Structure formats: structure tokens, C-alpha cells
């Protein structure tokens, strides 16, 4: 990735609050048009990292560059490139939606016709046309959240940072926000944090999993899956003896297991059998071929169970607990470095 392409560059970022280390040596880069998801347990340092990116909090060490400019040395320049929606989305209660957005537009340097155009555009994009005359204090959570998103994208910044944009929304509103973020893909860099893992998986190009102020895993959801979950599960509806199925699937290798799922065969004599293979690679076709060739076994259906991001998340954060908790200081850093090299050894997966 070239330097010119990167809108956010973070190098060795450190932030303490008193004796608590909130962010501990985080480095990452975000390209133009990329959507990045921050994942991590509460208190992992996601919000702190985001606040440092926006220039709201100063860092103790490290470099943050937005569009090539350092946040610490030219904050007014970098703030122009950022649209930010904080956690809990604070809004003034007494203003009307349009008044608020107009004021925010003025602060962000929009004027006259351009401001009117952008205002209409974001009201439409965020489905706020019906609510633009309403007082923010009387709006429901979903509307308020959309006002926050509208504010973040108002000045068409290169970088959009949203802390928990979908928290407290109903499924319809979540889909709406998700579509909205997807539409920004390719034009703006987006960083968002969320607890809802399918949410991240559906929207983000890359995921950074943060725990204890460190990045414990980074990559596309597929990369993370193959890195942390080294098996794939299948459910097969099959007619025939379990032993015959086992025999037929022996070529899958030692590490694979074949178990009958709970429950008795249905009326037609079909039973659900789960198969676990020892790799993230797809064995679906091979399984079908093997069972098709086997005597006295008939297959009706095969479903692949992909590991969810949830499992990846649990595996990644668990690993970081194991490596960081018993160790302190440099030893912990060495342990993280060791796991990092571990990541690098699976490049093709």
C-alpha cells in the first residue's frame, strides 16, 4: 500500500490515563475508501483510539496522520478531513434537526449553495426529510442516531469515524445505517466500532480486533477465520449406517471427525450427521463425491457451517488474554511479537 493512498496512518500509538494504559503500541493503516471495523471487549481501547484519531484526546506517544498530516502538530487541518460520531451520539436537545445540521455545516466550513446542497443530500441519505423540522430532544433513538450519521458525513470528509453507530437501533434501522455506510465505500475511509459482530462482517473490508489496548488480530473476516479457526463444520442429511459414512469419509484425513447429531432418523430414514474437517479449506465437494461413491449411503443435503466472526473474536481475545495477562512489560510485548510472526506464517490462507 502506498503512502499517498493511506488516509489514516497510526504508528506506535500509546495513551495512558494515570497508571492505566488504555492504548498500548497500536499501529495500522487505512486506505482511501476502505471500511474498517474495530472489535473488542468493553474497555479495550477502541473509543480512546478513535478519540485520538479525531484529535480530541492527545496521545502520550506515537504518530497519527490523517491524509498525510499529523494530528498532533496540525489539528485544525486534520479535523477538516474527519467526520466523527462519538459513542452515545450526544446532540443538543433544544435545536431542530435542520438548525443543528446547518450550524454543524457552518462549523465545518460549508457555505451558501454548497451547504444547502449537502444538507438536502444528507437529509435524503439518512432518511430524515420527514423529521427535519422536529426538535432533536423529541426524536426517537433511531432518528437521533441518523442525525449523528448525517452530521458525520455532512462535509464529505475523507475519513469518517463512528463509535458504535448501530447501538440501540432496531433491525430495520441497523440495515439502513449499514446500507448508508456501504454506499460510502470507495469514496471515504470509514472506521466504525461495534459489538454486533455480524454487523461488522456485513459492512467492513477489514477487521481490527483490539484487546487490552493492543491489536490482537487484523485482516479480512476470511483471513481471520482461517487464522484462528482451523476447522470447518458440515451438516449432512444422510441415509445409511453411521459406520458406513465414517468409512466413506476416511480420505478426509485423521483430523476430521464424523458424529451423528442428536435425534433419531426422520420418516424417510435420513439422519443429520456433523463432519468436522481439520482445515479452513472447503471440503464440501470432496464430501459429496466420497459419499456418492459409497455403498448404502444416500445424501439429501449438505450445509457448510462457517465459523462466525464471533468465534474468531472469542478465539482472538482469549489468545490475547493468555499471552498478555501473566506477563508484564517487555516480556508481554515479546509474546505479542511472537504471535504476530505466527500470523505471518499463514499468508495464503
Amino acid at each position, binding site marked *: 500500500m502506498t503512502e499517498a493512498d493511506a488516509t489514516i496512518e497510526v504508528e506506535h500509538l500509546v495513551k495512558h490515563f494515570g497508571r492505566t494504559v488504555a492504548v498500548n503500541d497500536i499501529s495500522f493503516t487505512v486506505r482511501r475508501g476502505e471500511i474498517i471495523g474495530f472489535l473488542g471487549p468493553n474497555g479495550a481501547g477502541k473509543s480512546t483510539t478513535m478519540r485520538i484519531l479525531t484529535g480530541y484526546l492527545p496521545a502520550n506517544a506515537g504518530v497519527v496522520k490523517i491524509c498525510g498530516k499529523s494530528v498532533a502538530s496540525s489539528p*485544525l*487541518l486534520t479535523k477538516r478531513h474527519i467526520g*466523527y460520531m*462519538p459513542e452515545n451520539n450526544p*446532540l443538543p436537545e*433544544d435545536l431542530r434537526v435542520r438548525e443543528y445540521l446547518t450550524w454543524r455545516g457552518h*462549523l465545518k466550513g460549508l457555505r451558501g449553495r454548497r451547504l444547502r446542497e449537502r444538507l438536502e443530500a444528507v437529509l435524503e441519505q439518512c432518511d430524515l426529510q420527514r423529521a427535519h423540522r422536529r426538535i432533536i430532544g423529541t426524536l426517537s433513538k433511531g432518528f437521533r442516531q441518523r442525525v449523528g450519521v448525517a*452530521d458525520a458525513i455532512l462535509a464529505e470528509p475523507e475519513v469518517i469515524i463512528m463509535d458504535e453507530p448501530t447501538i440501540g437501533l432496531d433491525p430495520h434501522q441497523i440495515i439502513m445505517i449499514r446500507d448508508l455506510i456501504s454506499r460510502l465505500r470507495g469514496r471515504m475511509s470509514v472506521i466504525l466500532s461495534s459489538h454486533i459482530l455480524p454487523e461488522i462482517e456485513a459492512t467492513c473490508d477489514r477487521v481490527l480486533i483490539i484487546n487490552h489496548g493492543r491489536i490482537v488480530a487484523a485482516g479480512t473476516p476470511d483471513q481471520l477465520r482461517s487464522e484462528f479457526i482451523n476447522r470447518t463444520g458440515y451438516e449432512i442429511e444422510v441415509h445409511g449406517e453411521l459406520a458406513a459414512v465414517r468409512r466413506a469419509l476416511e480420505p478426509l484425513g485423521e483430523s476430521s471427525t464424523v458424529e451423528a447429531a442428536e435425534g433419531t432418523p426422520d420418516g424417510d430414514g435420513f439422519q443429520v450427521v456433523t463432519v468436522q474437517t481439520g482445515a479452513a479449506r472447503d471440503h464440501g465437494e470432496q464430501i459429496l463425491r466420497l459419499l456418492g461413491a459409497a455403498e448404502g449411503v444416500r445424501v439429501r443435503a449438505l450445509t457448510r457451517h462457517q465459523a462466525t466472526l464471533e468465534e474468531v473474536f472469542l478465539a482472538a481475545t482469549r489468545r490475547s488474554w493468555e499471552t498478555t495477562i501473566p506477563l508484564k512489560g517487555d516480556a508481554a510485548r515479546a509474546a505479542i511479537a511472537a504471535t504476530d510472526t505466527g500470523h505471518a506464517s499463514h499468508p495464503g490462507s
Partner: protein
Amino acid sequence: MRHYFILLRHELRVLIITPSTYIAAVLFLGVMGFFFQELLASYAAEPSDVSPAVGFFKLFFFPVFFLTPLLTMRSLAEERRMGTIETLMTTPVTSIEVVLAKFSASYLYYLAMWVSTLSFHYVLYRFAANPQVIDPGPLLGGYLFVALSGLMFIATGIFSSAVTRSQLVAGLMAFSLTILLTLGLRKLADLALFMTTPGEMVNAVAAHVQIFQHADDFVSGVFDSRAPVFYVSTAAFMLFLSVLALDARSARS
């Protein structure tokens, strides 16, 4: 300073559309009207050689002690508590612009309240049999003093509001600082400790920062340039501290 006017216009707009602005103004006028009426009643009972305006500004401190903390305690503390300070400070505005806009809005509101008390004097002038009861000199001096000292009191309130998330703490702190600046400085000038040679300078300075004395001087037409210098410089210092307080952020605010 490009954003200062945007911020100030926003602050004023919020003041204008908020009902509490008007409720506070009505209550203030009610209390001041009551004092004024009492004052006139005492004039009616026994003649006095000073005009009612002079007496009116003697009552100046009572509302200042309560009014300025109440007017300013919301400004920055509320933004911190609500978290809107975060969305505000992540736009390309500087802390100086934010503090100055908050200060200007509160100051204009404070002035507007005092200007509305001019109506008392108009009513008196209109209905008094003797137009001589209105003496424009003390009135002018008095309102000038209110405008000048207001700079310092409002800036003190803004500073108190900048250091905390709690409106209660901000209000009480502004109240205490106001007492310190008025009664405390008077006490300082009276302290025997500073009457002697090593402390003479403190005493000399303290003698010139007597806010009650300033009030009397202005109302009686004595315009001492040291008073405006004191109010403007103290206000500037308080605002400077507010900018520092706003820039120092913790994890929670």
C-alpha cells in the same frame, strides 16, 4: 476567529429559543422591581439628598452574587456532561473561539437583563410628579460600572464552568470566587499584616481593587481608569484559565 461568530450566533440562538431564558429574566426583573419599589417607598417616607439611582446601584451586589453564577454555570459544564463538547471540539474550532463565544453570549444576556431594568427608571420618570428624581449622571455611571464589572464576574463564571462537568460545582465555585473577589479583596486591604513595610505593596494594590468603592465612584461620577484595567485584565486572565481547562481533557469528558 472565523468560527467565533458562528459559535456566538449559535449560542445566542439557543438562548433565544430556550424558554428558561425568559423565565430567568422575568424572575430577575421581578426581584429587582421589588427592591426598586422598596427603595421608592423609603424615599417617599423620608426625603434623601441622593437620587434613587444611587440607592439602586447600592443594591447592585445582591443580584450579582446569584445571577452571574446561575447564568454561566451551564455553559461549558453542560457541554461536558452531555458529551456535545466532543462533537464540538472535533470540528476545526479552537478552544479560544469556544470560550470567547460562550463568554460573549453569557455577557450579552447579562447586559440585556440589566438594560431591561432601565424600564424602572422610565416608569419612575413618567409617573413621578417631579422629573428631577431622575438624575442621568449616576444612572450612566452605574450602568457603565455594571457593564465593566460584568466582564470579570461572567469570566469568573465561565472559568468555573470550564473546570467541571457538574453544574452544581460550577455554580458554587463561581459564587465563591465572586465572594472572594468582592468581600475577600476588601478584607485583604484591612489586614494588619499588610499595613507594615514588607507587605505595603499588597496593601497598596488591594486598596485599588475595592469593588464596592468602584461602584460608589462610578455612580458619583468619579471615573478612575484603574478600575476598567482591573476588570478587563481579570476577565482576560479568567478566560485564559478557561481555555487551559477546556484543553485539559480526561478520559471521561
